[in-house]
């Protein structure tokens, strides 16, 4: 028997260098903290400035003092806004629109996503991509044709939709439904196929499979989609600016701009206060549901 062996004909030409894993990790951490701090400063300076300004009187804002310090703190901006019926009306409109939009969005996108993810019908894959593509068209491109459509609709039917807050219930879902459907498709697709097969064999209909298996299992994704829909409808500016004009029909972001800027007079203290108060509801929701939101967005990225 001839024995064989691998004969070393050449050594590696680059010298072998031994690194240190703990040192590498330490540096990685330092860089992460550096950039995290940078981004934190970048994104927190603005709300901080809003808070500082909101606590100042108009006189102090226009005075040439240090803008980063409050010398005579006052709550007059807050009191002024919270006792103003107009501002509360904006707030109420925003809340109403957002809650309705979230409900409508979920009622459409959850069954749609379930159908697109699970019922393999002709063209379902193309349709799923199509849903996402509609999301990519910017609202700045759509608002003029939409306005025209509602105007023509009003002329034909006599049903006036323009300058009514509920027109937003029709418009906002064009933004929220595609994205939420997309999120939910991803989430539903990550649920093992055997789970619905087991349910079907157990005697569940498609609807029961959706309501009793898929929705509870995909709850984190559902919450993520809900938060998204809420944020979009709460913060939407262009559409309400175009479609609503009367003071009693305005939502918060537009209301602040139109009622607190009079000609070239900017009521900065109240603008900042209003923006800060307006940012509060999403902030509170995020604080409570942050974990679900992240879990929902990253679902399906990895298996298991």
């Amino acid at each position, binding site marked *: 028997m001839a024995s064989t062996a691998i004969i070393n004909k050449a050594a590696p030409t680059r010298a072998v260098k031994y690194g240190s894993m703990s040192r590498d990790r330490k540096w990685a951490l330092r860089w992460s903290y550096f950039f995290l701090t940078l981004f934190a400063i970048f994104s927190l300076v603005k709300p901080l400035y809003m808070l500082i300004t909101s606590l100042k009187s108009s006189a102090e804002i226009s005075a040439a003092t240090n803008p980063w310090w409050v010398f005579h703190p006052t709550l007059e901006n807050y009191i002024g806004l919270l006792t103003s019926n107009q501002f509360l009306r904006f707030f109420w409109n925003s809340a109403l629109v957002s809650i309705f939009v979230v409900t409508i969005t979920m009622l459409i996108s959850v069954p749609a996503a379930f159908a697109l993810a699970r019922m393999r019908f002709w063209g379902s894959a193309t349709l799923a991509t199509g849903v996402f593509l509609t999301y990519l068209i910017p609202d700045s491109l759509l608002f003029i044709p939409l306005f025209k459509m509602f105007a023509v609709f009003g002329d034909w039917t006599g049903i006036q939709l323009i300058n009514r807050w509920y027109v937003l219930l029709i418009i906002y879902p064009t933004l929220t439904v595609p994205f939420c459907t997309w999120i939910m498709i991803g989430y539903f697709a990550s649920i093992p196929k055997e789970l619905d097969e087991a349910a*079907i064999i157990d005697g569940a209909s498609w609807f029961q499979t959706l309501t009793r298996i898929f929705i509870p299992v995909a709850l984190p994704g559902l919450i993520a989609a809900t938060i998204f829909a809420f944020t979009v409808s709460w913060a939407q500016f262009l559409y309400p600016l175009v479609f609503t004009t009367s003071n009693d029909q305005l939502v918060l972001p537009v209301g602040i701009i139109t009622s607190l800027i009079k000609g070239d007079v900017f009521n900065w203290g109240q603008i900042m206060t209003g923006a800060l108060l307006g940012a509060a509801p999403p902030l509170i929701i995020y604080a409570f549901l942050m974990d679900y939101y992240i879990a929902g967005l990253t679902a399906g990225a990895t298996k298991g």
Partner: protein
Amino acid sequence: MADVTLRKVIKRYDEVEAVRGIDLDIADKEFVVLVGPSGCGKSTTLRMIAGLEDITDGDIIIGGDVVNDVPPKDRDIAMVFQNYALYPHMTVAENMSFGLRLKRYPKAEIKSRVTEAARMLDITDLIDRKPKQLSGGQRQRVAMGRAIVRNPKVFLFDEPLSNLDAKLRVQMRIEIKKVHQKVRTTTVYVTHDQVEAMTLADRVVVMNHGRIEQIGTPNDLYHKPATRFVAGFIGSPAMNFVPCRLEEVGGRLNIRLTDRIAFPLPAARAARYQNVARNEKLILGIRPEHITEAKQHTEPGVETFDVVLDVTEPMGMETLIYFMLEGIEVCGRVNPNAGARDGAPLRLAVDLNNMHLLNESTGVVL
């Protein structure tokens, strides 16, 4: 309780024919195992019985009714999946009772059935836990419990033990057998593991390339395989296949393996192979346990020969030996005290009473 019949069942996906015309009769209360390599169509067949896949052609009959177009929920079947498919947000009890609750059974009935099934499967203590708090074996039990409480006409198992480790698999295998002895429901079980198939089945259905190769009891398949595929698939280590031909020397029928090695056939075998053409290319099929160390006195039909061993594998109660015959590796099983060593010569005995003779081109056992 029901029998299951498949009549010329075909499944075609676009270009590929996954199942190519299967005929199968499963009697009431019978435990039938579909076994075969991956892609042989066994899972597809099971899923067609369940109604999870449409059939392209043929008929599936459960309890006398053609169910080709009946949706799964109305077929009155229960299925256990490889990955258990437990509902993650429900407790064990809720998982087991889901089907009954959908059908609006009275609460008391549901409770008694769940309790009874849990007791049978020894999971009474786990009844309020969620699936993620359970081990693999426990999850498998819950999945079985979910099937049992439904009291269906047919149980379907789709490789239920594949996700378990080897030790647990043996344990659950026995568990499944016990459950079947108690519940006595018609069962169709799919696996790629021939040991599982042999140990569980009343009858085994060996499938290959979308067709049934052979149907029979475990012992039938082992001792009387019909084709080379079945002969090679059933049994571990697998049957040896050595090219050979028949020759007649002085009125006696010999089987010639190599220029050096030829054996006279035992009388019974000689009579059986009398009409086989002498020059036809044949294959000798012989199981490892029929190649052993030579003894002082040889029985009739047992012939001896000398080989040099390549490799030996001591298994404790026996030693597996490997040697080459005409470029083909042959495996035998000898006594640990027979003196088998790597590279050493050894005198072996082959029991030709248990030989199989196969046609090389068709693979049919003669």
